[in-house]
């Protein structure tokens, strides 16, 4: 376990370096000079360009530039956003909490409803309920979230006035965005849980338990669901990634503040230091979460180590 952990952390460090190189390259790969790109249309005077060039060290070799960018980033300094007129780190500080909130609620919805639908379908395997639940799951994971969000706004905010149309604070403002964000994951998780439960129910020890007369409820909760939970942990890790990517769209549809909307806005306004920071942050977070899920999986189920 210790060796495995060390190896995975080593791999994570290499991955983080790769991610940082890609994020760093954003500003160097765009056409034109980086200083011009950072200032955008707001500053075009020669003196200002020269000052920023010197300040960013754009005259120095690329490797040095990269190392100093990474060094600053590790200390939480991602530069200055000229379009928003504040430091990128303060932009991040404002936008991380609402995104985390949305992802947390989305994750809870995904797991709870994914499990319910998946277990329900598995118990009624081959019957009409199963078919209906699985049809619903395919539909959930196929619906475009930007359209679904619009439909929900249309129905629950414009027609029924149950929730605020856009913005809105607290639970009321969070409900529609979280449902929109989670629905795809619910479909995916439900399909996964269903096959996992069906597989667990066919294990020999379940057959034995049934043969010796253990009650249905005890078999279901004590043997089947308990064992089928394991693969679900894996799905949670994967879902975290799609939720991280999904917030980009959902925050845009509901005009919610957050990292996703910050990313899109800064791409559109060519605010490159912010783009770099958000890309780096999201990708590294995703890798760390994936690692934690894998480690948790091995602790809970040591058999995976031998696979």
């Amino acid at each position: 376990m210790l060796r495995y952990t060390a190896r995975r952390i080593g791999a994570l460090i290499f991955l983080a370096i790769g991610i940082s190189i890609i994020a760093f390259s954003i500003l160097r790969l765009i056409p034109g000079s980086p200083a011009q790109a950072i200032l955008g249309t707001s500053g075009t005077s020669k003196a200002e360009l020269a000052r920023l060039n010197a300040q960013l060290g754009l005259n120095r070799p690329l490797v040095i530039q990269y190392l100093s960018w990474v060094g600053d980033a590790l200390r939480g300094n991602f530069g200055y956003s000229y379009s928003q007129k504040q430091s990128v780190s303060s932009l991040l500080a404002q936008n991380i909490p609402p995104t985390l909130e949305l992802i947390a609620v989305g994750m809870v919805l995904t797991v709870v409803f994914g499990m319910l639908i998946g277990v329900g379908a598995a118990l009624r395997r081959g019957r009409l309920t199963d078919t209906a639940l699985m049809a619903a799951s395919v539909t959930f994971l196929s619906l475009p979230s930007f359209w679904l969000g619009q439909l929900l706004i249309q129905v629950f905010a414009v027609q029924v006035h149950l929730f605020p149309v856009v913005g809105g604070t607290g639970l009321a403002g969070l409900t529609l965005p979280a449902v929109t964000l989670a629905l795809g994951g619910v479909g995916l998780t439900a399909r996964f849980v269903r096959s996992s439960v069906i597989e667990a129910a066919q294990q020999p020890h379940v057959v034995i338990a049934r043969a010796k007369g253990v009650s249905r409820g005890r078999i279901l909760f004590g043997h089947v669901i308990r064992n089928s939970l394991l693969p679900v942990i894996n799905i949670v890790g994967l879902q975290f990634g799609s939720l991280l990517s999904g917030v980009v769209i959902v925050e845009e549809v509901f005009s919610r503040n957050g990292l996703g909307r910050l990313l899109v806005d800064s791409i559109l306004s060519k605010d490159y230091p912010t783009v770099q920071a958000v890309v780096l942050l999201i990708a590294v977070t995703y890798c760390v979460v994936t690692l934690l899920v894998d480690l948790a999986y091995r602790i809970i189920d040591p058999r995976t180590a031998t696979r």
Partner: protein
Amino acid sequence: MDTTAVVSAGVTPPRGRSRLAGAFRHKSLAIGVALIVIVLAVVIIGPFLNSHNPDAVNPGAAFDPPSAAHPFGTDSFGRDMLSRVETGGRYTITAAIVIVLLGGVVGIALGIVAGYFRGVLGFVIMRLMDLLLAFPGLLLALTAAAILGSGLTNGVLALAIIAVPAYARVAEGATIEIRNRPYIDAATSVGVNPFTMITRHVLPNVRDDLLVLTSSWIGLSALWIAALGFIGLGVQPPTPEWGTLLSGGQDYLSVAWWITTFPGIFLALFVIGTNLIGDGLRDHFDKTL
């Protein structure tokens, strides 16, 4: 006697019409194909039957609800939504197919090379793929869009990059599995060169996996190119791509539900169709293998 013929005898899976026809016994495949046929019919044949020009502006007819003249209503410029949905589908679906073709060809090539030759080359290729996979979902496409800028071509390129590691992983895994079978060693021993080996023996065997992957990726790519269009980083208005149609109706949700409802229905049907086909193919191949 031809050596390759000897080596491949008995390992080539049964193919032809009977095999495909059998696949339609799977309900999800049949429903998926039906959905795709309906959507494609509307998108391909629709514009020929519709007298409206998708780009013709008519301020007097702005925000007309669905009627006999405009079955899907009109948008804020009085443009006929039915013809915009039909033409928009051409952009979205063509883009999705090109994304998968581009990303698929590059990804399959990289995956097969990595899986067949292994060693340092394979290691480097697959670690690069891991790096691309470290960017969840749209993030990689957004990164590429930040560098390349918006537009149809750039959006397609950005999304093709996402497809590359997905294909590479499947192709590599399947290639390694096949690589270890005795008949590959046998073929190597009689001097079959790597290129022939890959095209004759490896590709046909990974085909099933890649077919399943492709059908769901076409739907996913359609979803993502529309998402890019929706947030303003993909196809640009006034081009009637499904995502830009949805973003164009965003401001008028409370006055004109039809602007967003119809493009969304078609996009959803298309994606559901591709996913069902993927499911059906997976079931089908699993049984025969």
